[in-house]
C-alpha cells in the first residue's frame, strides 16, 4: 500500500485522482465516490441500518428472544404489553416479541433464497437472448412475456396450490414469478453492450459466446440488476407475507409474520397487539428495502435520477 500511495499526499487524493495509474485505482476511486454519494442520502442509510439490524437480530435470535417462540402457555394467553412481554402475548400465550425475533430468520431465508434462484435465472435468460438475438431471442422473450402476463401473486397462488402449502413451496412459487423482469433488464443491457468495440476485440481474440457472456457481459449487467433485486425485495417480502396470511406460506406454529397476522385476525376487537406487532415488522422491513433500493438506484443507475 505504501508503495502504491507514492506521489499522493493522502488515500483520499489517491482515490480521487483524474489520472489513475491502474485499473484497481480507478475502480477504487469510483467505489469511493459512489459510497460518498450513497451516504449523503440519509433515508437510504436508514434503510441500510434497519436491514443490518434485521440480519443482526436473525443471527442472534437465540440470545435476543427472551422466550421460546413455539412453546405455548395458556395461563399467559392474550397478555397486554408489559415489562415481561414487551409486545404482549398471543392467543396461546406465546411471547410476540420472541416470535417476531425468530420470524426475522424466516424473512431473510425467503428473500435470500428467492434472490439466489431468480436473479441467476433472469440474468442467464436475458444475456443469452440479448447476445444471440434472432430466433433464440424471440423464443426466450416470448416465454418471459408469458410469465409477465400473470399478476405475480395470482401465478404464485396457482403454483402453491399445485405444490401444496409450505415455506419452501412458497419460495419456489415466488422465484418462478420473479425472474422475468431480471431477464428483461439483462437483455436490454446486453443489447447495448454486444455491439461495442471491446466485445468485437474479444471475439477477434477467439473468445467463444459462453466466455463472452459470462466474463464480459454478465459483470456489466450486475449493477442494474442489484438495484432491481433490492427494490424487489420489498415486493417479495409482501408477497411471502401475503401467502403466509392466506395460510399458503409458512405453516403454524412457525413464527412467520404474515401467518402471525392471520392468526391474530379473530382477536382484533379486543387484542389489537396480535395483528399490530407482526404487521409493523413486515412494514418496517419492506420500507427499509425500498429506501435502500432508491438510494442504490441513485448511485448505480444515474440515468433514472429524479
Amino acid at each position, binding site marked *: 500500500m505504501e508503495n502504491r500511495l507514492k506521489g499522493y499526499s493522502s488515500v483520499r487524493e489517491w482515490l480521487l485522482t483524474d489520472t489513475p495509474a491502474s485499473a484497481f485505482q480507478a475502480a477504487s476511486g469510483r467505489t469511493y465516490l459512489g459510497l460518498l454519494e450513497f451516504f449523503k442520502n440519509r433515508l437510504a442509510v436508514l434503510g441500510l441500518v434497519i436491514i443490518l439490524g434485521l440480519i443482526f437480530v436473525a443471527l442472534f435470535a437465540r440470545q435476543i428472544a427472551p422466550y421460546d417462540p413455539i412453546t405455548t402457555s395458556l395461563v399467559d394467553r392474550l397478555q397486554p404489553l408489559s415489562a415481561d412481554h414487551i409486545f404482549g402475548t398471543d392467543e396461546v400465550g406465546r411471547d410476540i416479541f420472541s416470535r417476531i425475533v425468530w420470524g426475522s430468520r424466516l424473512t431473510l431465508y425467503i428473500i435470500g433464497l428467492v434472490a439466489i434462484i431468480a436473479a441467476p435465472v433472469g440474468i442467464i435468460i436475458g444475456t443469452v437472448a440479448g447476445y444471440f438475438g434472432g430466433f433464440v431471442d424471440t423464443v426466450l422473450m416470448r416465454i418471459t412475456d408469458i410469465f409477465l*402476463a400473470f*399478476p405475480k401473486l*395470482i401465478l404464485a*397462488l396457482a403454483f402453491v396450490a399445485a405444490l401444496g402449502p409450505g415455506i419452501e413451496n412458497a419460495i419456489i412459487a415466488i422465484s418462478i414469478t420473479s425472474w422475468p423482469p431480471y431477464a428483461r433488464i439483462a437483455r436490454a443491457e446486453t443489447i447495448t453492450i454486444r455491439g461495442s468495440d471491446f466485445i468485437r476485440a474479444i471475439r477477434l481474440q477467439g473468445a467463444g459466446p459462453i466466455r463472452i457472456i459470462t466474463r464480459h457481459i454478465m459483470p456489466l449487467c450486475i449493477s442494474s440488476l442489484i438495484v432491481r433485486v433490492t427494490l424487489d425485495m420489498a415486493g417479495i417480502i409482501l408477497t411471502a407475507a401475503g401467502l403466509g*396470511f392466506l395460510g399458503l406460506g409458512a405453516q403454524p406454529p412457525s413464527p412467520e409474520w404474515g401467518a402471525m397476522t392471520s392468526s391474530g385476525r379473530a382477536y382484533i376487537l379486543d387484542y389489537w397487539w396480535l395483528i399490530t406487532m407482526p404487521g409493523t415488522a413486515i412494514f418496517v422491513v419492506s420500507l427499509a428495502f425500498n429506501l435502500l433500493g432508491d438510494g442504490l438506484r441513485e448511485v448505480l443507475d444515474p440515468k433514472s435520477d429524479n
Partner: protein
Amino acid sequence: MVQMLTKRRLSKAARQTLRLLVMVLITFLGLLLITFLIGRVVPIDPVLAVVGDKASPELYERVRIEMGLHLPLWQQFYIYISSVLRGDLGTSVLTAKPVLEDILRVFPATMELAFTATLIGIFVGIPLGVFSAVKRGSLLDHITRVIGLLGYSLPIFWLALLALMFFYAKFDLLPGPGRVDVFYEDIVDPVTGFMLIDCIIAREWEIFRNAFSHMIMPATLLGYYSMAYLSRMTRSFMIEQLRQEYVLTARVKGVAEWRVIWGHALGNCAIPLITVVALSFGTLLEGSVLTETVFAWPGLGLYLTNSLLNADMNSVLGSTIVVGAIFLGVNMFSDFLYKVMDPRAR
C-alpha cells in the same frame, strides 16, 4: 398521392394490429400451457378424486380413459385448449357448478372494486404527481413521496385489518365485512352484477346507501395503492417532460403556465401513463385477493382463496386463466392505444 399515403399507413396499421393479435394469441396459449402443466403436477390423482379410493381397478381404468388421461400429453393439451376455448373450465368441487358460471357470478364484485380504485388512482394520483413534479421539494412533493413509499411498503392485508379495527370495531363509523348488511342481501336483482348500479335500476335507495358505505373501506384501500403507484410514475414522467426544450419554447412564447403543464407536458405523458394504468390494474387484481379475504367481499379473490384452501383445482386454475386473460387483454388494449396515439410508434 395523399390517398396512396393513407392507404399505405392503414395497411401498415392493420399489419401491426395483426402482429399484436398473433403475439397475444401465443401468450395466451403459453398461459394455458402453464395452467395445464400446473394441473398435471398436482399431487392429487384426478381419477381417484372422481371414483374414490375404494373403486375396483377396472372402474379406475375406465374413468381414466374417459377422462383422456391415457392419451399422450400433447393430445391432452389439445383437448384442454379446445375445452377452455369453448368456455368449459371444468366443474368446481366446492360448489358443484361449472367453474365459468361461478366466476361470472362473483366477477362483477371484483370489477366494482378494481374500477373504483382505478378511478381514485387516476383522479387523485395523477394530479398529485403533476403538482409534486411542478413544485419539487415543496411540502406537497414530500407528502406525495411519502404516500408512494408507504404504498410500496405497507402489506395491504394488514392495512385492511387496521382499517377494520379502527373504523368498524373501535369507532363504528363504517360497516364491517360484506357487500351489504345481512338483511339486505339477495333483495336486489343482479342485472349488471354491479351492486350500486343494480340498486339504481331497482330504485332501492336504502340499499344503495348501505352498499355504498360498505364499499368505502375496501375501495379506498385499493385506491390508495393505485394512487401511490400512479402519483409516483406521473411525477417522474412529468419531471422528464418539464426538462424538455419545447416546454421552454412554449413558456417563451407566452403560453399560460397552466396550459404548459396540464396541456403540453401532461399531454405528452398520456401515452406512457396509459401503460402504467394498465399495469396498475393487474396490481389491483392481486390486491383484491387479499382485500376481499379481509372484507369478506364476495368477488373473484375470495372465490380463489376459498378454492385454494379446499384444494379445488378446477376453480383455482379457472380463476388463474380468467385473471391472466383479463390482464393480457388490458395490456393488449394499452399497447394498441399506444400505437394509435404515438406517431413515433407507427
